[in-house]
């Protein structure tokens, strides 16, 4: 065994060029695979962070009956304890208390069913970039009882900045909620549902309108690191009385996003599988040619008495060594490559950049640094190389070395 390894090692360095070519195949393979996976994982990260941030948040605290029946009757009492629990949690990047309810908005002869979102203006802007979407008038402020509405709703109700609209609905305990509110700003939102039917007000306005003193429909929480999801969720579940409160994760609130990510992952795995296929063939080709190139050398060795089986083991050892060296170098080089792109993500330009911004996603191609994933690429490419090499290496035992030496092959 030791002999085999020594021979293999010496063979490697006898023809440096050949060895380097084969090793470089594998190095590039690892780097490319790492980069692709890094990009895929980067885009999921982006979705898990940006998309979740602006829709449901990673976690949401609500009344235990609220999810099934989203009426104000099922609103939660925002106690001092709950407030301090949330305020003191360092793993949260955004805390978004909300009061939301459907009602009628009317102006002149026109009436439309809308959704009133009572929010903290600063927090909402952090989540969805609403302030930047204002095209006329001004954004919400903490004081006052103004509303901001979408362009399409403004058109339908014939409203300009400064006009007032009437909202009518049912408040907590079925009390009639009615108010005349001034339009302070009009926004342009790419999602037509929001542009047509959402009205934003500050929390105080919503509280007064719906008789929701000390109450909220939910508190949405955004984590700094989405990996903290399970830990944080457990923390809240144990800290809060679950006969009163419900702590929901985005996974149960936004099944569409969850399945979108899962299907993207599925799709991503198919793609990287295809990449492995291409890499595999590349390595197969390289090793096959290497074997072909050394036909004469092998035949001479066999003529000198080296048994075919032994030769195969030596060449196999060579391949494995090259594989390991290549994969290790590849792994080592992957780190700086990925790190570079992580810090300097590739920007998206043109029309696509516009689309990304509209959905409140940064227009960049993110690359994620995940050491575990890099290690997997290292391992898979290594195994792939060895498997791809087996065929060509085995064919050595079938050489007719006499013909080869005689130059007839």
């Amino acid at each position, binding site marked *: 065994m030791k002999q085999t390894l020594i021979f293999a090692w010496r063979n490697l360095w006898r023809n440096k*060029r*050949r060895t380097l*070519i*084969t090793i*470089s*195949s594998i190095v*590039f*393979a690892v780097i*490319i695979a790492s*980069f*692709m996976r890094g*990009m895929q994982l980067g*885009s999921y990260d982006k979705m898990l962070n940006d998309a979740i941030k602006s829709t449901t948040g990673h976690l949401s605290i609500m009344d235990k009956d609220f999810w099934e029946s989203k009426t104000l009757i099922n609103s939660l009492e925002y106690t001092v304890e709950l407030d301090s629990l949330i305020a003191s949690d360092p793993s949260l990047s955004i805390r978004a208390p909300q009061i939301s309810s459907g009602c009628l908005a009317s102006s002149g002869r*026109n009436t439309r*069913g809308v959704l009133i979102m009572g929010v903290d203006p600063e927090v909402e802007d952090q989540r969805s970039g609403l302030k930047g979407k204002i095209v006329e008038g001004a954004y919400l402020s903490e004081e006052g009882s103004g509303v901001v509405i979408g362009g399409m709703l403004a*058109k*339908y109700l014939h409203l300009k900045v400064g006009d007032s609209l009437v909202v009518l609905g049912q408040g907590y305990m079925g009390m009639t909620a009615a108010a005349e509110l001034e339009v302070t700003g009009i926004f342009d939102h*790419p*999602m*037509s549902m929001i542009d047509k039917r959402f009205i934003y007000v500050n929390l105080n306005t919503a509280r007064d309108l719906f008789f929701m003193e000390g109450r909220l429909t939910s508190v949405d929480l955004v984590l700094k690191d989405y990996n903290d999801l399970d830990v944080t969720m457990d923390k809240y579940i144990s800290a809060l009385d679950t006969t009163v409160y419900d702590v929901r994760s985005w996974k149960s609130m936004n*099944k*569409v*996003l*969850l*399945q*979108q990510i*899962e*299907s993207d992952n*599925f*799709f991503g795995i*198919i*793609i990287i599988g*295809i*990449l492995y*296929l*291409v*890499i*595999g*063939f*590349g*390595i*197969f*080709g*390289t090793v*096959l*040619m*290497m074997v*072909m*190139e050394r036909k004469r050398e092998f035949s001479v060795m066999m003529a000198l008495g080296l048994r075919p089986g032994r030769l195969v083991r030596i060449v196999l050892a060579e391949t494995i060594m090259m594989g390991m060296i290549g994969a290790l170098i590849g792994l080592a080089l992957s780190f700086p490559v990925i790190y570079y792109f992580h810090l300097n993500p590739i920007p*998206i330009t043109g*029309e*696509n950049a516009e*689309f*990304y911004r*509209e*959905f409140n996603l940064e227009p960049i*191609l993110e690359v994620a640094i995940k050491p575990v994933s890099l290690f997997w690429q290292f391992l898979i490419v290594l195994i792939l190389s060895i498997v791809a090499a087996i065929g060509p290496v085995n064919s050595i035992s079938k050489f007719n070395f006499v013909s080869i030496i005689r130059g007839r092959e």
Partner: protein
Amino acid sequence: MIGRLAWRNVWRNRLRSLVVVLAIASGLFGTLFVAAISRGMIIRIVQSTIDNDISDLQIHSDKYVISEELIDVFPQSQLQAAIDKNAVLIDAYSFRVKVEAMATSANGSHQVTLLGIDKDAESRVTGIHDLVVEGTYFDTKTKLKEICVGRKLVEELEVRLGSKIVLSFADVEGDIMYESFKITGIYKSSNSEFDKINTYVLSDDLIPILKTGESNYHEAAFRISESALDQVYSSLHEELPGYEVMRWFEINKTLRAMSSMMDLFTFVMVLIVLIALIFGVINTMLMVVMERRKELGMLRALGMNNFSIGRMIVLETVLLGIIGSIVGNVLTYISVSWFGDRGIKYASAAEGLEQMGMGDTLYPELGAYTYIAITLLVLVTALIASIFPVRRVFRQNIAETLRN
């Protein structure tokens, strides 16, 4: 002469040729299949939205676009001339009346969009008639007015086929009308949100109730092929001042965004696979050239100069590239057809995806344009990838030969 040499070289060493062909074919297959899958995904959403919901082009009166009020109908006659002018390019069209209504049953109520259609014209424009899973598409004998609703709405209202539901809406004078309809058809599209909201009745039944006037409609929808779309759009836009003519991507801006973002992602993935291919080919070709040192040395001894030898090798690569592309294209075509029919089912439950309009299976699809474009790309890449090793090894060969 070099050409013939090149051709014979290719066939002489079949194993070597096979290796290069395989490398190129696999690269081609790889990139094409990636493109097929992502196209399949986006087509599903975009196309099904166009097929069943928004069509390729829609026309409304200017006022209606903003007000969405019943009174803002247009007379069919005003549009007919413009339509007839473009008759050759328009595949199908239909007219509809539209009203927001409340659908109620004993157990629930839900806001819906009530569409009064001409059942024959409509079946040429949307695919609803094909999506009927229970009952018929306006072909049931009943004394009541027929309505075709989505499966999701049926679940919301806790009713079934044959149930009577009441729709309430305001007529053109603002009076509230209550009308009962019998559910004679239930459809299911790949988008459950769509199914909850869109309900269909015969315009002959709806127009008298709305009192909007015979042959007056709110909406005209068209099916037009991609190549003719812009032309028809311009023509209609010109012929019909006072009307808003919108193409599908103007009606639903998110579709275009999704399509575009998907294209971007595909491009990036294809690029990465191409890079892998380059390295694979470079290394393989380096090995090939090294393996043929003796043979090439002999050719030089026979008087061929480096340049000609270089050209011969490049020519061989071109030939191999062509063979590789044929193999790759055939392989791709077979896989895409096979999977395209059967579809690749997602592992997890499809509920969320149905909300997005994606259904629960992935059908890869590829257009001729993509085949050609990517094949050319791969060929050029392989070619470029083969030139460098050839040049480098030559320079070293000369040095070696001189030393020897």
